[in-house]
């Protein structure tokens, strides 16, 4: 007897099963290559949590994923599939670069930083809002448009960084360093300053911004009028029009928020670490955001957990590079693909099995599950 799954299994157990499936497949591939998957896993865990400074790195990567994961999730709530996080983050970085490079000779560093932070969000928001506008007003499909916008952003970055913005006397496509002090404090510096010993890591104040963004998105989606309308737009544009709102406007606002969150990812990489704009600083984190949002079920708490997992994977993957000859951090990319596959595309695969298992354990159901609706059109 099959039985519909209760919420706690759907939210709590299914993601674990899906991740487990991804890891099992990855483990099989590693075994086929001739390495011991268990050893690889333990190297990754140590690399991500145990070694000195490892946790800092893990949280540093997680910061990126919180931003890009939230970006995808916010758009998802309006059933918009924003694949453009990568491009939006790049353009966000450009925003920081433009503010920092043009103002750092004139203004004190703190002021430059305070101007640069919103600029990351604004630039990302604009790069997200254009596809939103194209979907809302011109009917182009947001998936294709955001894919195209990633390539366009990437070309703009190459063109600018190898041209106008290239540091004089440099051969690689990157800008000059920002002025001394134009960067975010790193957490270990703060910790050491107040007397807490902490190993060096690139973890910086962006992490706190990311945590604030998590709370902010939760409030936005579930506790505000705008969030209510965003979710309504996701389910039925007609109903939103009926209720007196303009879905085109809502789509644009949603995509702006989404793009802004993706743009903020540049804080972590550009202001937090590089203190200059370099090519490809996004390293595919925008795409990882999709995996994070899928795994986290578009809920900020889930996204936090998923970001930590991916942070650990990326940091652990770096450790793999040191320890193994035959496997490298690209393996993490592979795991990422598998996770998207299992918790996204194949999300429903284990459902019937679980329903049967649950039915066997919990027994037939007569009271708790509500009656199926009858299709209204015909009898």
């Amino acid at each position, binding site marked *: 007897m099959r039985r519909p799954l209760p919420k706690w299994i759907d939210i709590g157990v299914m993601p674990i099963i899906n991740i487990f499936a991804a890891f099992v497949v990855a483990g099989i591939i590693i075994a086929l290559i001739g390495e011991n998957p268990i050893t690889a896993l333990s190297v990754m865990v140590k690399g991500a949590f145990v070694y000195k400074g490892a946790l800092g790195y893990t949280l540093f990567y997680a910061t990126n994923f919180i931003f890009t994961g939230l970006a995808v999730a916010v758009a998802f709530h309006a059933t918009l599939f924003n694949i453009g996080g990568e491009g939006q983050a790049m353009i966000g970085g450009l925003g920081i670069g433009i503010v920092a490079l043009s103002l750092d000779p004139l203004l004190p560093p703190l002021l430059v930083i305070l101007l640069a932070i919103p600029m990351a969000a604004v630039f990302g928001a604009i790069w997200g809002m254009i596809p939103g506008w*194209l979907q809302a007003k011109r009917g182009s499909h947001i998936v294709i448009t955001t*894919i195209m916008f990633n390539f*366009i952003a990437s070309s703009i970055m190459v063109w600018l960084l190898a041209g106008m913005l290239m540091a004089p006397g440099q051969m690689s496509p990157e800008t000059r360093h920002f002025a001394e002090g134009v960067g975010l404090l790193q957490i270990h510096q703060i910790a050491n300053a107040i007397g807490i010993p902490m190993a060096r890591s690139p973890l910086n104040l962006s992490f706190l911004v990311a945590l604030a963004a998590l709370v902010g998105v939760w409030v936005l989606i579930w506790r505000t009028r705008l969030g209510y309308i965003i979710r309504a737009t996701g389910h039925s544009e007609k109903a939103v029009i009926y209720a007196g709102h303009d879905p085109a406007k809502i789509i644009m606002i949603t995509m702006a928020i989404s793009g802004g969150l993706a743009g903020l990812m540049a804080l972590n990489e550009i202001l937090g670490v590089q203190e200059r704009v370099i090519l490809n600083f996004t390293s595919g984190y925008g795409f990882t955001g999709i995996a994070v949002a899928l795994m986290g079920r578009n809920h900020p708490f889930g996204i936090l957990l998923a970001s930590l997992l991916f942070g650990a994977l990326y940091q652990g993957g770096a450790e793999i590079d040191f320890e193994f000859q035959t496997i*490298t951090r690209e393996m*993490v990319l592979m795991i990422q*693909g598998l996770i998207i596959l299992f918790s*996204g595309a194949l999300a429903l695969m284990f459902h019937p099995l679980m329903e049967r298992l649950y039915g066997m354990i919990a027994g037939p159901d007569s009271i708790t599950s509500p009656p199926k609706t009858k299709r209204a059109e015909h009898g």
Partner: protein
Amino acid sequence: MADIWLQFLLTIDATLRVSTPLILCAMAGIFSERSGIIDISLEGKMLLSAFAAASVAALSGSPWLGLGAAILVSMIFSLLHGFACITHRGNQVISGLAINILASGLTVTLGIALFAQGGQTPYLSSAQRFSAIPLPFADTMRQVPIIGTIYAEIISGHNLLVWLALLSVFVTSIVLYRTRFGLRLRATGEKPEAVDTAGISVTRIRYQAVLIAGLLCGIAGAYLSIAHGAGFVREMTAGKGYIALAAMIFGHWRPVPALMACLMFGFLEALAARLQGVDILFLGPIPTDLILVLPYVLTVVLLAGFIGRATPPKAIGQPYVKER
């Protein structure tokens, strides 16, 4: 003058070479999307099959085995896409994306494990590749002005897979518009309920469609690594799958217009390669990056309805569920 003519011919010739994988992938996309399955995994399948082709060609020494492996691998991943999207009604975009990311990771991981060359495959000798097929009298014809040079430079000297790509357009057209299968395929992408109630399995048509897409993608991948190139390099597809997707949209999901779009995008790429480092008077070097981005920009402009309107098949992206 003769020099400019030759430059022009060489650019056209390069256009054909660059367009070949685009054409094959665009036809793949047409089969899949006309049946209602979005396929953004063209990129990933092409990458995986490029890797498979180069690896098998390197290990066995036979380009034919390489091609076979490429097609096989690509079709396996098509089946995976089908399994997720058709059988389990998963989100088609997410599934495609998963395959693309998986492909990036898997090719490098396996490449390092197999060849320990940082993710590349060994350099392939000409015996391990599909080499150019000079057509008869190409050298003699070269002396004849215009027609002769066109024959020698553009028509002659392509490898088998280039011809296969052009043939695929013809075959796609015939299959789509002149056969029973084509009628059913097109109907499935527009209104699957109509197909189902006519007693035809939507699932079966869609699986057939994605498998054909896999076959064509496989040839495209093999072309990249064992015909056009001489080995696999990590991320060697470099967005070509997405350009093919764009070309398919540009061609309104029809074979011949899609071919034209592929040639146009290929021409832009060939042109950019030719203009690399060329200075325009007073303006400095031509920004070839901006030429290369044109396919993407044009696609956005097209999709926005500023130049005509691209209407996708109606049922695209929606898993087919019987009512209730």
